[in-house]
């Protein structure tokens, strides 16, 4: 029996085959396929399921110490340029494969319930399979260029899925924004890849790292050029992992269906940037300055996300900013030269954030029964409250997620976040302070979400509030909404609660694979580093830092508890009114969207318009003017417009023939 790694190419291929088959069916026999919901869902689920099984087999092999496997073939070549493609299986990849397939599988099961009433059910499943395939391909890519290929493909899937409900104006804009902001990052990534190829003649991760250090030592590449290239490449992860200032697309991307927000915009695709930085570790570790930049960007993002999340009233947007913030933590770890800590947080975060998003989807699903399908209403926490009694499974899993992300031991988030903060404390103490404060904010805003949604009284039937919210969003009530018959709140079907429960388990226990004094996770990824870690481990430092972060998290939670559950603290009075400028600043998301809109969107539009004016008036004007002049007068042009221009063509053609004939008559040149 061949080893699982030898057939690992099947992992991305299986979902692709399923997606292509269903996609072709949708194009050719649309209505038939659209009616075959169950068969399609089962087919695609079994494709992903098979990939999952295979991924775990691969992971098991790697755990038992199997060597890396790499298979390449020549994809393109010209001159002495040879570009290999293929796949590589190593511990890092194996872990990511298992993670992505698991979450993709659970999200797919969940989608069966969530999308049950949607007419795009089949299309949705096809996109999901396509995305899974691209994401898995990205993980097994052996070189930067192949990563770029799949990088773009996951971006495309994200575009298709954010714009899934294409009749919504907001979705259309969000999808476009996501793609274009990512392209800005890819612009840097592409140039960086090309530059690194120029400098090292390689696309391979290790080849680049060793090639660049050789080139630096021989002086073939100056230091500044190497730094520039590293930072250019980092632009890619900045966009994909929503780092400041390219994070603006992620909150908007919440326009997509909620399962997508869980899978793509929380657990997998947005983590691809962090994953790429981890892959590039041999390169980045040579440049402390690049590490510093990454750490600073990560910290800014971390703080920015958490601060905006404090004021969000939209449940999904709150979670989205929380994702931005957590991705910042991961980048901070990468910048501190601790890719293992970053990857560890990536994994724990993937589980509990996917669960939180799926939980929010469950809430929205229930809210839609009461307030209708308008996302402004269904996702606003001012209309929620008291859902715990109606939705016990959802609320319990959501609570687990909140505890996990707040970093309360022994849940998963504690171990991974503490690891990062510990690394930051030793490398960049100032950044540690920011990260530490953010941990408190995280605990506060997460429990704010929980209390507003699940505790207190249900406020969803308040028509006045609904109208007020609609006015605020400047949306006129459509006729459809008036026809909406308000239903009752209820817990979601098993297909939605089962994945929630399944995700709750790793959210609680996954942290134990990375306990700092005996980290199985580090042993798998980098045994040498693991040894070092455990030998450097000091109980004193660990306990002090852990106590501090638990303390600030507890403070955040208690503050939220008294403000939103017991209503002992009036946030409005205490904070919002006193620091109204800060409050406004946060509510408007640091005004980044406005700046973006004013400078880039309108600027590029104006520039394009001006160029078009020039094209139409100046360039074409000169041409027409020349035409007029050569024809003697405007009468000439009029003549051509009356339909006799065919003659002109004949004249030109005849003239040419005559000219050729003339040369013929003149005879051969005398020699």
């Amino acid at each position: 029996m061949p080893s699982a790694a030898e057939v690992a190419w099947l992992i991305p291929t299986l979902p692709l085959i399923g997606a292509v088959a269903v996609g072709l069916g949708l194009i050719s026999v649309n209505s038939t396929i659209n009616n075959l919901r169950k068969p399609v869902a089962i087919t695609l689920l079994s494709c992903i399921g098979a990939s999952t099984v295979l991924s775990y087999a691969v992971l098991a092999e790697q755990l038992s110490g199997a060597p890396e496997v790499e298979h390449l073939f020549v994809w393109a070549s010209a001159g002495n340029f040879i570009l290999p493609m293929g796949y590589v299986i190593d511990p890092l990849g194996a872990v990511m494969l298992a993670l992505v397939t698991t979450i993709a599988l659970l999200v797919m099961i969940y989608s069966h319930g969530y999308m049950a009433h949607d007419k795009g059910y089949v299309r949705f499943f096809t996109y999901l399979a396509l995305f899974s395939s691209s994401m898995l391909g990205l993980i097994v890519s052996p070189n930067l260029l192949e990563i770029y290929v799949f990088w773009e493909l996951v971006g495309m899937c994200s575009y298709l899925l954010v714009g899934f409900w294409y009749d919504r104006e907001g979705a259309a804009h969000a999808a476009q924004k996501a793609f274009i902001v990512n392209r800005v990052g890819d612009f840097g990534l592409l140039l960086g890849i090309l530059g690194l190829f120029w400098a090292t003649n390689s696309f391979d991760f290790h080849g680049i790292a060793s090639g660049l250090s050789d080139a630096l030592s021989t002086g073939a590449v100056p230091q500044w050029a190497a730094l520039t290239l590293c930072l250019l490449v980092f632009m890619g992860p900045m966009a994909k992992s929503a780092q400041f200032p390219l994070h603006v697309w992620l909150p908007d991307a919440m326009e997509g269906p909620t399962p997508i927000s869980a899978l793509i915009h929380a657990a997998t695709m947005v983590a691809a940037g962090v994953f790429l930085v981890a892959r590039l570790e041999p390169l980045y570790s040579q440049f402390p300055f690049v590490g510093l930049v990454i750490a600073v960007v990560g910290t800014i993002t971390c703080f920015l996300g958490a601060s905006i999340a404090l004021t969000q009233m939209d449940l999904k947007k709150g979670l989205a900013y929380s994702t931005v913030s957590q991705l910042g933590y991961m980048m901070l770890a990468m910048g501190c030269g601790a890719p293992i800590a970053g990857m560890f947080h990536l994994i724990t975060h993937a589980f509990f954030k996917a669960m939180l998003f799926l939980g929010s989807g469950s809430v929205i699903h229930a809210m839609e029964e009461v307030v209708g399908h308008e996302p402004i209403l269904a996702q606003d926490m001012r209309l929620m409250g008291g859902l715990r009694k109606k939705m016990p499974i959802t609320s319990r899993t959501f609570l687990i997620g909140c505890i996990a992300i707040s970093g309360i031991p022994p849940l998963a988030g504690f171990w991974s976040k503490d690891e990062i903060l510990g690394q930051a404390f030793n490398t960049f103490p100032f950044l540690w302070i920011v990260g530490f404060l953010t941990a408190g904010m995280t605990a506060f805003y997460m429990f704010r979400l929980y209390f507003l949604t699940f505790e207190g009284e249900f406020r969803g039937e308040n028509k006045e509030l609904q109208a007020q919210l609609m006015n605020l969003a400047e949306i006129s009530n459509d006729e459809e909404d008036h026809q909406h018959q308000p239903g009752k709140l209820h817990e979601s079907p098993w297909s939605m609660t089962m994945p929630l429960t399944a995700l709750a388990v790793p959210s609680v226990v996954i942290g134990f694979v990375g306990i700092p004094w005996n980290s199985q996770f580090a042993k798998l990824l980098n045994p040498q580093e693991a040894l070092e870690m455990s030998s450097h481990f000091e109980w004193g430092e660990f306990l002090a830092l852990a106590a501090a972060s638990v303390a600030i998290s507890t403070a955040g939670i208690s503050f939220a508890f008294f403000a939103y559950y017991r209503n002992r603290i009036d946030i409005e009075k205490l904070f919002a009114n006193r620091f109204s400028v800060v409050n406004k600043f946060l509510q408007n998301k640091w005004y980044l969207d406005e700046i973006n809109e004013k400078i880039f969107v309108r600027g590029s539009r104006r520039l394009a318009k001006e160029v078009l004016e020039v094209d139409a008036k100046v360039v074409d004007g000169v041409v027409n003017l020349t035409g007029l002049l050569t024809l003697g007068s405007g009468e000439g042009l009029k003549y051509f417009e009356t339909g006799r221009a065919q003659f002109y063509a004949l004249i030109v053609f005849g003239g040419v023939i005559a000219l050729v004939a003339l040369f013929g008559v003149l005879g051969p040149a005398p020699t």
Partner: protein
Amino acid sequence: MPANPLITEQLGAGFPWLSLSIFFPLVGAFLVPFIPDKGEGKEVRWYALCIALVTFLITIGAYLQGFDPTIDDLQLSEKISWLPDLGLTWAVGADGLSMPLILLTSFITALAVLAAWPVSFKPKLFFFLILAMDGGQIAVFAVQDMLLFFLAWELELLPVYLLLAIWGGKKRQYAATKFIIYTAGSSLFILLVALAMGFFGGGAPNFEFSTLAEKAYGSSFQVLCYIGLLIAFGVKLPIVPLHTWLPDAHGEATAPVHMLLAGILLKMGGYALLRFNAQLLPIAHAQFAPLLIILGVVNIIYAALTSFAQRNLKRKIAYSSISHMGFVLIGIGSFSSLGTSGAMLQMISHGLIGASLFFLVGATYDRTHTLQLDEMGGVGQKMRIMFALWTVCSLASLALPGMSGFVSELMVFAGLVTDEAYTLPFRVVIAGLAAIGVILTPIYLLSMLREIFFGKENKNLVSQTKLIDAEPREIYVIGCLLVPIIGIGLYPRLVTDSYTTSIEALVKRDVAALEQIQNPSASLILSKGITPAVIKAPKL
């Protein structure tokens, strides 16, 4: 597949594949008047489709039977002395530069005939012109004699002109006239240069490429010829600012003509630049190449911006064509076999993608009866398959990996960046600017998709027009185009292997010429900063 040993340069030996592929559609075209047809085109369209398909099969036969991609020399040659006094010979042949484009021509033409299915106004004349164009365009790529090339080039203008002038939109006369003045006027330069080169060096005039290539032209003579040819081919490609005929012509053409314009006609310019400017005039090319690259960048950015501001769908796509052709220019000027291969692949790739987009524009117009983006919106709900096809083709056009456009642009980029012919700052600036196109392309293409398909339905549009979804014929046409687009994207060597050897030979010649003019005084046109005066010395 090894070359047929029977095919030699000798008259009559071997099967005349190329002559057949030129004359078969031409003869087929002249037989169109004898096809019994009731005037609605129902019979003649089948006839035209058969002729176009057989032509396609002939070119495939030529490729499989007579063409060996591992040889960089001319193959499938045929040579008949035609007017010896004039030095005119019927010389056709194919190397790696021509063969893929010949295949592309017959392929796109066959699909264009399928796209012309609904044509009911003067169908006989229409299909006559399309078939005549097929032969003429294959001739452009296959002939090996410069005078003959000029004739073929002119021969193909007339059908385009008539197709525009008779079946075009409201401003068709203006567009057609502009087209003919531009192209016929500029092609006079081809004639002049052909004569100059043919008579150069005394002796009996001879216009065969192989003979022309062996003559030792002086440096300034080459430069003069180069300028003339650059104008002629720059109009066709088009190069900004010689492009203004294109948005008008494209804006007025019907869908099948569109496909031919974008799919094949623009490629004639790129092909001719490679064939004449780069191959026959290497010394001048060594001096002008930086200019080509700069013009390429201008094309990419300028046309992308104009495309973004355009509110007319057809013109938007037309400008996007110009933008994409910028990569061809950069590739041709790159002095690297990788970049030049990329240029070649970009021509093929854009031929396929451009044709598919223009076909979709036509199909959409048939339903919405408007091309103004402001009057569209939300049609995605009524036309879901159409929406899907549009999305796939737009993604192909914005160079999504997995499709052909990505590979060709990547090859051009990598060729430019890794090649040592230019100074590092020049390469950095050019690559940076060209990469801005990578951001601009999705901006205009995705905005376009959003404005056509996304959002709430435009009530006016829905009430006035019948928005039916794509019919099988349309799906089939796009499917045929997508197979090679995705095929190349997944495994580019499917196509690149067929021309790599020829391109490598060509680039070798150019690089040799570049080394020859190391002497900076030979650089006539450009300042030292940009001249690629063999910046090999310091490896950075």
